[in-house]
């Protein structure tokens, strides 16, 4: 069925051939890796909302006292007042303004969360990459050690350690949390580094004669960075939770410092009569953990090279 349209003009049929690089022209727009990840993070609405919430909470903890003008430690006669225009979050049993107290409490909790996560992630990453990079017996021993430590219930040890410090200041709580918290990160980073050590582009760098240090700086760190950052965002809420738990059990921050956990535990006593004393610190803890988890999810999807189209 040669159904050709015969009245096509002749010049349409002069062979031109094709130039080689026309086929080679790059079709996709040029994006660097970070720009690509940021673009994907940006159009993930939930992650951006979580990030804004986080920034809001951070601002609140830093400037909360200035906004409401109350001194968090100044006692006053207006004890146990419900939230009102005067005291937005109400007052506690000593008449101190709760809005200010939750704000400075937030500072402590966020500090412990962020610093704790940073220290353990840093130490865990170094431990994991060293163990993977050396390999062989050393790697087996280091991993055996991690296995034993991580088979001890995490909070039992934290309770023991915080008892040992006994002055239950921010520093001692942090130390207690960090001594045990790095095992999970170490295992994660070790797996990632092991994959890299055997990858082709690291072997290629070795055959090119690139020194070990340069390989670590140029290849290892950038490629494990995304795993470390995502893990970091999931560790922070974990620490805030642990600190709050310790304070709730009476081992955490003791006065004059305060944290969301100790505020919540103070609010627990007369929870039936003044529920707001417990509600606001609990709300802050939940919101912070919520936003960190959501932001962590968004970050993981954005940085995951597999999802890149």
């Amino acid at each position: 069925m040669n159904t050709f349209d015969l009245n096509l003009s002749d010049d349409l049929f002069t062979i031109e051939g094709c130039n080689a690089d026309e086929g080679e022209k790059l079709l996709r727009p040029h994006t660097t890796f970070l720009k690509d990840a940021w673009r994907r993070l940006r159009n993930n609405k939930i992650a951006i909302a979580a990030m804004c919430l986080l920034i809001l909470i951070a601002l609140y903890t830093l400037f909360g006292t200035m906004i409401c003008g109350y001194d968090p430690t100044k006692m006053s006669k207006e004890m146990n007042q419900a939230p009102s225009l005067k005291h937005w979050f109400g007052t506690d049993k000593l008449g101190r303004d709760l809005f200010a107290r939750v704000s400075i409490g937030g500072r402590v909790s966020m500090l412990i969360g962020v610093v704790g996560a940073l220290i353990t992630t840093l130490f865990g990453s170094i431990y994991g990459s060293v163990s993977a990079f050396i390999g062989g017996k050393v790697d087996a021993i280091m991993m055996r050690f991690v296995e034993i430590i991580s088979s001890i219930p995490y909070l039992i040890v934290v309770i023991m350690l915080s008892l040992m410090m006994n002055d239950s200041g921010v520093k001692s709580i942090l130390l207690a949390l960090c001594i045990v918290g790095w095992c999970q990160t170490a295992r994660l980073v070790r797996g990632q580094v092991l994959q890299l050590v055997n990858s082709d582009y690291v072997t290629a760098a070795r055959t090119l004669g690139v020194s070990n240090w340069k390989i670590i700086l140029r290849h290892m760190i950038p490629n494990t960075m995304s795993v470390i950052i995502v893990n970091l965002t999931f560790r922070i809420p974990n620490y805030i939770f642990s600190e709050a738990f310790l304070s709730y059990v009476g081992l955490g921050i003791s006065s004059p410092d305060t944290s969301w956990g100790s505020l919540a535990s103070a609010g627990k006593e007369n929870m039936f009569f003044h529920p707001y004393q417990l509600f606001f610190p609990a709300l802050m803890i939940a919101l912070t953990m919520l936003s960190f988890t959501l932001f962590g999810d968004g970050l993981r999807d954005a940085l995951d090279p597999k999802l890149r189209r």
Partner: protein
Amino acid sequence: MLKYILKRILYMFFVLLIVTTITFFLMHFIPGDPLTAMVQKLPEQTKINYYAKYGLDKPVYIQYLVFLKGIFTQGTLGESIRFPGRNVMDVLQKYSGFSSEIGLVAVAIGFVIGVILGTLAALKQNKLPDRVLGVIAILGISVPVYILGTVFQYLFTVKWPLFPTLGWGTPAHKVLPILCMSFAPLATYTRYMRSSVLDVINQDYITMAEAKGLSFSQVVRHHVLRNSILPSLTILGPNVADVFTGSFVIESIFSIPGLGSYYITAVNDRDFPMIIGCAMFYTAIYVLSLLVVDILYVIIDPRIRLAQDK
């Protein structure tokens, strides 16, 4: 298979020993000791006799040897200093039953429901149920268990008196505490199960099963569930520890005579034998659950089972 289990049990005792050693030595570095809280006023001489009675005056490692001898010979963990005459082992036996009951039931409920909800969320990906379950899961992780406890207590015992506020005994007492404690594991498993089901469902053998003519529910039952449950099993062990730490607080909120509240009071009173006893109990439960998870893993995944026999 048996050889593998024996090896794991030996490993379990090894870990238990290490924990008790660490706890024991940690205890003795804590400034202050049980007597300061209690006996400021007593004359000097009674203090010395008191120390001698509990062997606290001897150097630490000797106390440790005495302690070990106590465990292996008479199977006692020494006497509680805070409440003289009360043997740690009796306390453990009597009260650990309650703690482990609500703890393990909470984990079981959390795991089973979490697996089901996670699979549902994955199969209805990005549709309404997936979104709703996603929110519940996030809330489950974010809201700390003790806050949940107080809120539930307020709602379901004071506002709508469905359950008794405090105490223990009737099954009705158990509902609220178990509900609170199972909410966090439920959330964790929903998220884990959802991501592992999403991985498994894109595998070639699932497309192969569909090409064989299996209906979607058959594909899920025969192939998806078994393969996607494996990763969730691995976090069952550590999750048990998290749930039990939650029980400390829940027991104090609902005043359940479990080991948790005992443990907290012992810690505050620096009651060494009691603290060590409780710590050992919780570590035993935790390491036992790790063992159970390993055995389940070997049963479900033939690759590991056969690797052991070879």
